[in-house]
């Protein structure tokens, strides 16, 4: 069974997708409190993701999760660039695997916290 990835869209990402033709693919999560894109991942690409990223797993919804933040960021870049949510965007990320892994290694030590008052 093919699994999927959920790409979360904050305001910045939503703005970047305006005019991309993907607006009608945007889904509501948690009653519209979050927006996202469901990206189906064919089995052979899922296998590659699992091989390349030890932390990746399938959660109880059938979604591929626990990939590095850099993976999701690159995935969004590919979606915006290719104006698609087809398998080619996953291929696009996997073609940039070294770049993703390099960024992920840096991000395993430090992630900038959100700028909110605590």
């Amino acid at each position, binding site marked *: 069974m093919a699994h999927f990835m*959920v790409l*979360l869209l*904050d305001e910045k990402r939503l703005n970047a997708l305006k005019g991309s033709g993907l607006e009608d693919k945007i889904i*509501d*999560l*948690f*009653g*519209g*409190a*979050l927006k996202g894109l469901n990206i189906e991942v064919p089995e052979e690409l899922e296998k590659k993701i699992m091989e390349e990223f030890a*932390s990746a*797993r399938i*959660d*109880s*919804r059938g*979604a591929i*999760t*626990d*990939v590095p*933040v850099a993976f*999701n*960021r690159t995935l969004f870049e590919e979606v915006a660039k290719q104006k698609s949510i087809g398998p080619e965007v996953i291929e696009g990320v996997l073609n940039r695997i070294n770049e993703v892994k390099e960024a992920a290694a840096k991000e*395993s*030590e*430090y*992630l*900038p*916290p*959100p700028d*909110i*008052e*605590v």
Partner: protein
Amino acid sequence: MSNLIIERPLPHGGRLVERVVRDPEIGKKMAKGCPAYDIKPTLHFETGVPVRNVYREIMSICYGFFSPVEGSMTQAEVERILKERRLLNEWIFPYPLVFDISKEDYQKLGVTVGDRVLLRLKGKPFAVLDVEEVYEIDPPELADKTFGTPEDNPEVVRERFDKKHPGWVIYRSLNPIVLAGKYTIINEPKFRPPFDRFWLPPRKCREKFDELGWRTAIAHQTRNVPHVGHEFLMKNAAYTGDVEPCHGILVNAIIGVKRRGDYPDEAIVEGHEAVHTGGYIKPERHLVSICLWDMRYGNPLESLLHGIIRQNMGCTHHMFGRDHAAVGEYYDMYATQILWTKGIPSFGFDKPPTEVPYGLHIKPQNMKEFWYCPKCGEIAYSDNCNHTKEKQKFSGSFIRGMVAEGIFPPGVIFRPEVYKVVVKWWKHFGYPFCNEKYVKEKEKNLEVDLPDMDI
């Protein structure tokens, strides 16, 4: 009084074990002239990464969380536990607990039966162990027997345990020599903030229940920052009780060795605290506490230990969910429910642990799942809500991904007060989850400091 009223159960074994010397002068006398051993973390048998620290077991035993266990188990006791999950005094108990050392350390220490060993933690006197027996174990065999196999325990074990299972790894990584005997803490450790304000050993916890007027209390096991799904689980499970809902909810966070990707312990305890400081559950009805233990992830066996810990703390009920304290698919996802409703004969329980002699009195409350339903417009219970297509599950890994991307979670996922705790510790550690640096530092510094004590 109505016979429907449920009273607080006695501790498991009938009385609370308390093996802590509060007077330092007595502690010094007890340890004078004893050979000393510096407690070392148990290191992964292949990678050398810390997977356990026996100090946590000594603390939980001596403060009574594991009553009636009083020390490192003898060989006969370990064998009985593996066979029937019972101590030699008949009371049920799920896991072997031993003080293990290497052959080299044993030779250096030069102790034998009848000797007392001073155990030092972070270079300072901590506890003594009165040696009753010295024996050798076979760690791989002990690891297999502790968790069971598909052949020996077909009711619930689905896969053979291996090095991907963190509990199996703990037993597999033990040293071969066991010093068995009772522990006594002679120099009380001091918890560092924020753990100090959540340290409620069983006697104090029972006193706190009295102070709060709780006759009935339901325990919530956690090793997670609470999302709104957890909050609804707590609130709804607490509707059980006797003639009225439970008077209180005891959150008991298991504090121990962390794995990469977990939330830091500091965020977990303060995150739960934020549920009541934020007013989502009244503080008069919600209490956050900790127990030191390196999780074995033994699903039904772990649930048994949780039942023992929380009965000792004074709880009348315990909530259990699907895949309770589980990792991977080694056990049936409902193994805990099978144990508490039918029993698991191959583990020594032909009936549930509340119906066997020398068993438990705490009552299980088996809960299914809570999800967000946009059609109901609320957090819904899976056995109520029939909008299975519309449902939005609280996937922990999805939420971790959202946090890592720095997206402010909506209030239906995290209460803002809880999320701010996550960000507070994120700012402190430079990372929202446990990374390699956090894991190493934690096992070096542990959760406690010890006062100076000259012996």
